C-alpha cells in the first residue's frame, strides 16, 4: 500500500498534537504535585490529606453533584413524559420553553438568580414587603443556593435525553407489550424505563460531571460552603501551587471514577439520531378538567422558568445606582446597551469573546473534521487513541484544564514542547479549543459514521479527487453535524467563565469577567446588559444550529 504510510503519518501528527494539547499539560500537573525542590515527594499529598478544608471541599463537590443529579432527574424526567407522551393545549410552545435554561450561560444564570432571589432580589423584596419582614426572607447562600441553580440549569439534560429516548421508542414495542397483556404501569416499568436506561444514565453522567465542574454557582453563592473547583482557584491564588496541583489531581480522579462507573450510558450518542419505526402517538388529554390543570401548571411552570431571563432583561435597563431597596427598579434607560457599543473599554470584552469563540470553534471544527477523515474514513493506526483523546477533556473539569494549561505554558522550553503563552493572546483560544474538542468532535465523528462510505467511492468512480470529494460530497453532507457541533462549541466558548478567570489577561478579558467586575462595582445594569447579549447570542446560535443543522 503506497498511500498507506502517508495517511498514517498524518494520523500520527494529529495524535501528537492532541497529546501535546491535552495529555501533556495534565501530566505536568501530576508531576508538579509530586515533585518538591528535593525531588519526588508525597509531602503535598500529606498536606492535602491533613488539610481540613480540602476534605470538606471534596466531600462538598461529591454530595452536591449527587444531589444535583437526583433533583435534576426528579424535575426533568416527569416533564419529558408530560411533553413527550401527552397532548394538550400549548404543548408545543411549552415544550420548547422548558428547554430555555439551556441558553443561559452558567455565570449569567447565576447573576439572574442573584437579581431574583438574592438579598435584594425582586422575589425576596416582594415577599419581605408582603409579609412585613425586617429583612430578606432567606439568604441565597451555601449549598441550598448552589443546588437551586444546579437544579434549574441541569434538569434540561434529563428533560432532553428522556424526550429523545421517548421519541426513539418504536410504537410497535409498546403495541407488542399491550398485546401481551401488559397494562400501562407494567409497560412503563418493564418496557419503557429499561429502554430509557441508557438515556437516563447519560443524563445522570452529564449532570454529575457538569455539577462537579460547576464553578460559577459556588463562586458567587458558596459563602462558607466549599467545593473543589473554588478551592483550587483559592489555593492557586494563595500561591500554594503544589497543593493546588494535588487538589486538581483529586478532582480529576473523582471525575474519571464517575465516568468509569457510568461508562455504559449513552452520552456519546447523538441525541438527534434517527430511529427505526414510528414513535408512539401522543395521548390526547381529553378530560376538560385535566386540560385546565395541565394548562395552568404548564404556564405557571413556564413563567417560573422564564423569570431569570425576564429579570435579566429588566435589570439591564437599570441606570447605575438608582435601584436599591425598591421591589422594582424606579428608573429605566437604554444607556447600558449604548455603553456596550460606544465605550471602547466596554465594547472590548464583547469583541474579545466573539473572536475567541470564533477562533476556537473554527480550530475545533478543523481538527474534528481531520480526525473524522483519518479515523472513520481512512482508519489510520492509533485511531482509537485519537478518539479517546478527543473525548478526554469532556471528563476533566474546566478548572483542571485551566490549571494544567497555566502550568504547561508558563515556562519556555521549546524542546519539551513548552512555551510561555500565559499572559499572551494565545492561552485563552487554546484553552477554549481544548474544552470544545469533545463536543465538536462527538458531533462530527457521529456525522462521519452515519455517512455511507460508498458515497466517497461513488465520487471517486466519477473522477472526483480527495479534495473535490471532501468539498462537494463529504462536507455538505456533514453540514448538520458540523453546525450542531460548532454552535454548541461557540456558545460554550462565548460564555466561558471557569477557564477564563484563571487565564485571562486585561487585553483578552471576555464578557464573563466584565460581568463580574461590573457586579463588583454595583453596576448591575451593565452586568445584566452583558448577560442579555450573551443570552441572546447563545439563543440565536442555537436556533441557527437547529434550523440550518436540520436542513439538507
Amino acid at each position: 500500500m503506497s498511500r498507506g504510510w502517508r495517511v498514517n503519518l498524518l494520523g500520527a501528527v494529529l495524535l501528537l498534537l492532541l497529546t501535546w494539547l491535552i495529555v501533556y499539560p495534565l501530566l505536568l500537573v501530576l508531576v508538579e504535585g509530586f515533585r518538591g525542590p528535593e525531588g519526588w515527594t508525597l509531602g503535598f499529598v500529606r498536606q492535602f490529606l491533613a488539610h481540613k478544608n480540602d476534605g470538606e471541599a471534596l466531600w462538598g463537590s461529591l454530595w452536591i453533584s449527587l444531589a444535583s443529579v437526583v433533583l435534576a432527574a426528579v424535575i426533568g424526567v416527569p416533564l419529558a413524559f408530560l411533553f413527550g407522551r401527552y397532548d394538550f393545549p400549548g404543548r408545543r410552545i411549552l415544550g420548547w420553553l422548558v428547554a430555555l435554561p439551556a441558553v443561559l450561560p452558567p455565570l449569567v444564570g447565576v447573576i439572574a438568580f442573584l437579581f431574583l432571589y438574592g438579598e435584594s432580589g425582586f422575589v425576596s423584596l416582594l415577599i419581605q414587603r408582603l409579609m412585613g419582614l425586617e429583612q430578606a426572607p432567606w439568604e441565597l447562600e451555601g449549598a441550598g443556593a448552589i443546588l437551586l441553580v444546579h437544579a434549574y440549569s441541569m434538569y434540561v439534560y434529563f428533560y432532553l435525553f428522556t424526550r429523545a429516548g421517548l421519541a426513539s421508542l418504536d410504537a410497535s414495542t409498546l403495541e407488542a407489550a399491550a398485546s401481551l397483556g401488559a397494562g400501562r404501569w407494567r409497560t412503563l416499568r418493564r418496557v419503557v424505563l429499561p429502554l430509557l436506561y441508557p438515556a437516563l444514565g447519560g443524563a445522570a453522567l452529564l449532570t454529575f460531571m457538569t455539577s462537579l465542574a460547576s464553578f460559577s454557582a459556588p463562586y458567587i453563592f458558596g459563602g462558607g460552603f466549599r467545593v473543589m473547583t473554588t478551592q483550587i482557584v483559592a489555593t492557586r491564588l494563595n500561591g500554594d501551587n503544589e497543593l493546588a496541583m494535588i487538589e486538581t489531581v483529586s478532582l480529576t480522579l473523582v471525575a474519571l471514577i464517575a465516568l468509569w462507573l457510568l461508562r455504559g450510558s449513552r452520552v456519546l450518542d447523538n441525541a438527534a439520531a434517527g430511529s427505526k419505526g414510528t414513535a408512539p402517538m401522543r395521548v390526547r388529554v381529553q378530560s376538560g378538567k385535566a386540560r385546565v390543570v395541565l394548562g395552568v401548571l404548564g404556564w405557571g411552570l413556564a413563567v417560573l422558568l422564564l423569570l431569570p431571563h425576564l429579570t435579566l432583561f429588566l435589570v439591564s435597563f437599570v441606570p447605575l445606582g438608582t435601584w436599591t431597596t425598591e421591589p422594582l427598579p424606579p428608573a429605566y434607560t437604554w444607556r447600558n446597551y449604548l455603553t456596550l457599543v460606544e465605550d471602547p473599554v466596554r465594547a472590548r470584552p464583547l469583541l474579545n469573546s466573539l473572536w475567541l469563540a470564533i477562533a476556537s470553534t473554527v480550530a475545533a471544527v478543523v481538527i474534528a473534521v481531520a480526525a473524522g477523515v483519518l479515523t472513520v474514513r481512512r482508519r489510520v493506526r492509533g485511531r482509537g487513541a485519537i478518539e479517546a483523546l478527543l473525548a478526554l477533556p469532556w471528563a476533566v473539569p474546566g478548572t483542571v484544564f485551566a490549571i494544567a494549561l497555566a502550568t504547561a505554558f508558563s515556562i519556555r522550553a521549546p524542546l519539551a514542547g513548552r512555551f510561555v503563552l500565559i499572559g499572551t493572546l494565545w492561552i485563552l483560544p487554546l484553552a477554549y479549543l481544548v474544552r470544545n474538542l469533545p463536543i465538536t468532535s462527538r458531533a462530527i465523528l457521529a456525522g462521519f459514521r452515519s455517512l455511507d462510505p460508498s458515497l466517497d467511492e461513488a465520487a471517486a468512480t466519477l473522477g472526483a479527487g480527495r479534495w473535490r470529494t471532501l468539498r462537494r460530497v463529504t462536507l455538505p453532507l456533514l453540514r448538520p453535524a458540523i453546525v450542531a457541533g460548532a454552535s454548541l462549541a461557540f456558545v460554550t466558548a462565548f460564555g466561558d467563565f471557569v477557564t477564563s478567570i484563571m487565564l485571562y489577561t486585561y487585553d483578552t478579558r471576555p464578557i464573563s469577567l466584565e460581568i463580574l467586575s461590573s457586579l463588583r462595582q454595583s453596576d448591575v445594569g451593565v452586568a445584566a446588559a452583558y448577560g442579555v447579549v450573551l443570552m441572546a447570542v447563545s439563543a440565536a446560535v442555537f436556533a441557527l444550529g437547529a434550523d440550518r443543522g436540520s436542513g439538507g
Partner: protein
Amino acid sequence: MTFLQLERLTKRFDNTLAVDGLSLSIERGEMLALLGPSGSGKTTTLRLLAGFEVPDHGRVLVEGEDVTRVDPVARRFGMVFQHYALFPHLDVGQNIAFGLESLGVSGEELQRRVARALALVDLGGYERRRISQLSGGQQQRVALARALAPEPRVLLLDEPLSNLDPSLRERTRREIRELIRRVGITTVLVTHEQDEAFDLGDRVAVLRGGRLEQVGTPEDLYASPANEFVAGFVGRSSGIEVVVIGPGERGVRVLVEQVEWDLTDVDEAPQGPALMVVRPEALRLMAPAPGALAGTVTERRFTGAASLFTVVTDGGSSIEVTGPPRSVRAGERVGIMPSRRAGGGIHLFPRAGK
C-alpha cells in the same frame, strides 16, 4: 479480442484469502456476471476492478494497459453501488453532472449530456428532482445514468437488483439488459442470484472461496457443470451418493441405494463411490416397481406446467423430481427412474479417494 483482463488476482485480508489467483478475460461489449455465495470473493473482485482495493498479486488490464494501481478517480470505470450511493444533498441533475464535471465538461454541453443520460434511463425532465422524492426503481436508474454519463470504459454493477421489490426486479432486470446492450459497454456485475446472473450475463463466472470454479455461458454451466459445487449452485438439483459399477447395457451402470440404473448421456466415471447430481426434470415418478428407487413424497410445490415433488427415499436421500401436477400426493409411496430423455441432467462426480 480481450478488452478487460484479470490476471491471477489475489487479495488477502488479515488471515482470509478473499480472492485467490483469479483470472478472467472479458470481451469488448460483453456482460460478465460474477456469481457466488456470500464470502466467495465476488464483491472483493469488483472492488479490485474499481480500484478501491489493490491486489496483493496479479494485474487488471484494459486493452492491454495495466490499471492495477490506477486510482479509482483516474480509472474511468463507472460503478452502480448496491445502495446506489446517490448524493442526497444534490438533485438528480447535479448527481449526474458530478462525473461529467470531473472531466471538465461545463455549460451547455454539461446540460445536454445530463439530459441525454436521463433520457437514456427514461427519466427525461427529472433534473431538478430531489433524490428523496424518487422511488427505489427511479433511484436505481439515476445511479445507472450517473455511472454512464461520463462514458466510462467499463461499467461495474454491485448487486444491482438486491435493493428492489421482487415485483420490480424482473422488469428492471430487463430494462438494464436492454440499456446496456444499447450502450454497448463492457460490464461486470456481481450477484448471488442465479436468475439474475443467467439473465444478465453473456457469460457467468461462478466463484467460491475466492477461486474461479467455472466460467461459461449459462447454457454451458447448466448442461455441463465442471464440478459438484457448480452443479449444485446453478439450477435446481439433488445430490445422491452412488457407486459406479462400470459400463452397463446402455451407458454407465450405477448402484443407487438398492437399485441399479444404467445412465445414458453422462460422462465416463471411474468405478467406485461418486456423487450423482440430478436435475429434477431428469427423473420421472412412477408407481413403486422393481428397478425404481423407492420413496415417499413429502412435499409438492406447484410451479406452473409441472409440479416439483420432494421425495425422501428409503435410503434417506431427499430428491426433487418434476412431474405432472396432481399426479401424486404427499405421503404417497412412489418409484423414481431416470427420464428416458435425461438430456444431460445427470452428472457423476467421483468421490475422494483419488
